[in-house]
């Protein structure tokens, strides 16, 4: 039981971290609450379906094409929509939420409302610590951890990554230091969509692919990011894993029904007691 929670919780945690990191990055860098974030996850799954199943491209190529497509959509959404209403956080939220529903309905018209399945990279099962897990889940875990580490290295070690963080901390000062804030925004947008897209391609094979699949992950990403402290990347990772263990634990020990209530109640409590989140610094000077 304990190992079950540890292993399955870690897998879920890695998946949630993938979703939440991009959401968090957008808030940290651009102060944007982008409710279109869940749609990147959905679009990646549908693009993969289009390229790999309908067009019969090799899977690796199909995934690469999907991820490029998702990044392109993200930059387009940023240019056409988000950029125009940046000043008002509520306008950004409503606009991106509207676009997310628009995308859902568009996808439903194009692909139909039914559940689809997309091919996985691996098949079979693996056993760890006596717990049997499907290999696809293990792959999702590995990719998740790999990307979290890669993001950590990118932000800490590369010039581009450091410029993104500089913009996140103080856009004005960053401008004076000669950092191109517009480029940093675009880069953060691309990375954010890429991470959510990867989540879509590695997780979709064992979850459902349907036009409404974006909403729940979006709400979870939103909650994780606020739980971790809006704008704190490592707070998000911590919160993602906490959520992973909590959900797995509660659904194993109690019931799946209670699982979401416990999670929502934790979110609500954190908001009421410490709105800046677990690792968030108070933004008010």
């Amino acid at each position, binding site marked *: 039981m304990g190992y079950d929670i540890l292993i399955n919780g870690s897998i879920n945690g890695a998946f949630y971290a993938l979703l939440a990191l991009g959401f968090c990055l957008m808030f940290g860098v*651009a*102060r*944007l*609450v982008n409710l279109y974030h869940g749609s990147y996850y959905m679009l990646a799954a549908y693009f993969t379906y289009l390229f790999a199943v309908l067009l019969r491209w090799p899977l690796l190529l199909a995934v690469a094409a999907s991820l490029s497509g998702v990044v392109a959509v993200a930059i387009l959404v940023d240019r056409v*929509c988000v950029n*125009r*209403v*940046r*000043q*008002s*956080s*509520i*306008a950004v*939220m*409503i*606009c991106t*939420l*509207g*676009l997310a*529903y*628009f995308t859902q*309905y*568009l996808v*439903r*018209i194009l692909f139909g409302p039914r559940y689809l399945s997309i091919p996985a990279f691996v098949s079979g099962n693996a056993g760890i610590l006596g717990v049997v897990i499907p290999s696809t889940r293990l792959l999702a875990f590995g990719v998740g951890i790999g990307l979290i580490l890669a993001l950590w290295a990118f932000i800490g070690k590369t010039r581009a990554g450091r410029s993104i963080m500089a913009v996140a901390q103080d*856009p*004005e000062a960053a*401008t004076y230091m000669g950092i191109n*804030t*517009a480029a940093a*925004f675009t880069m953060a947008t691309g990375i954010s969509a890429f991470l959510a897209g990867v989540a879509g391609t590695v997780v979709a094979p064992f979850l459902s692919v349907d036009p409404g699949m974006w909403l729940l992950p979006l*709400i979870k990403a*939103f*909650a994780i990011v*606020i739980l971790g402290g*809006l704008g704190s990347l490592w707070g998000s990772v911590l919160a993602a894993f906490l959520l992973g263990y909590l959900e797995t634990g509660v659904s194993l020990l109690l019931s799946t*029904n*209670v699982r*979401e*209530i416990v999670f*929502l*109640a934790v*979110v*609500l409590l954190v*908001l*009421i007691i410490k*709105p*800046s989140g677990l690792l968030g610094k*108070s*933004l*008010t000077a």
Partner: protein
Amino acid sequence: MVKLFKPLNVVVVLLVLLLAMPLLTKNSYLLGVLILANIYAVYAAGWDLLSGYTGRENFGYALFIGAGAYAVGFISKVFPVQAWLSLPVGGLTAAAFGLLIGIPCLRLKGPYLALATLAAAAIAERVVMIFSGVTGGEEGMIGIAPLSFEPLNSYYYSVIFMAVSIGILYLIGHLPEGLLLKSIKQDETAAEAAGINTTFHKVLAFVVSAFFGGAAGAFNAHYMGYVGPDAVLNSTISLTVIIMAVVGGTGSILGAAGGAYLLTLLGEFLKRFGDFHLLFYTALLVLVVLFMPKGMINSLALKLPGPGSEPVSRPVSGPGGHSGQVGPGRAGGRQ
């Protein structure tokens, strides 16, 4: 102030039109659509009083609607309650929930309040599912006394209910209280320094907003003869209310209510395009947010004054703030 008389004339004409509708058409389907539009108009206007005026956008308004509706459902199990009693009871139940949610969430706004209200409503929905023995779960509760066995009477009741509710909300919004709520949205610290007990007024806005959501929810329960998550507690309902209010325009009560009529009727009209109607609907929302930040009704009909109507000269950041491309500012603040 003089300017507002013209829109009021329009409102009177539309109200007369609503009252005369049964004389113009015998189409009971259309009347049914209008009853729903009346109910949604109260939802949107009630939402606007809290969210549009004080800038505390509630993403879980369905919690209040549901509280009112479920109150009727529970009472109806004991005795067949009539609307004249259950509307105030539903409203007061929701108002109690308004206190319950409003007080702990006083410090929150922007994305924080959005998530908190979203979570609160989602918890309520799950609780209803878990205690399905009492609440009927997904099936909901049936057997609630209808407004009237005569469809025409139901229609007139809905018009009266809508007119009274929106009339009260409009008055609150246009009395000094509305101005106070708007000042809280603009700068809470400055309002406090001006001697305003902002905490009290925020809680008041929460409670009044909840009351009308609950009353309209109760009305909806009588009209449908049924209470269930899909009718009154779903997150889709919360989002629909926000969309209606935003498309119509927030901060004027009439704009939000107008948005409800606009979208309900447009939705009916677009239904003939099948799946495409939802696509149009959401595209309209995005276009309105992008190009008419004050909302369609507010921009076109009410012609509200203020800097927002001239987006170019709209001052975004404080003096000395360098917006430019860095523009996001620290919106969605914390405290």
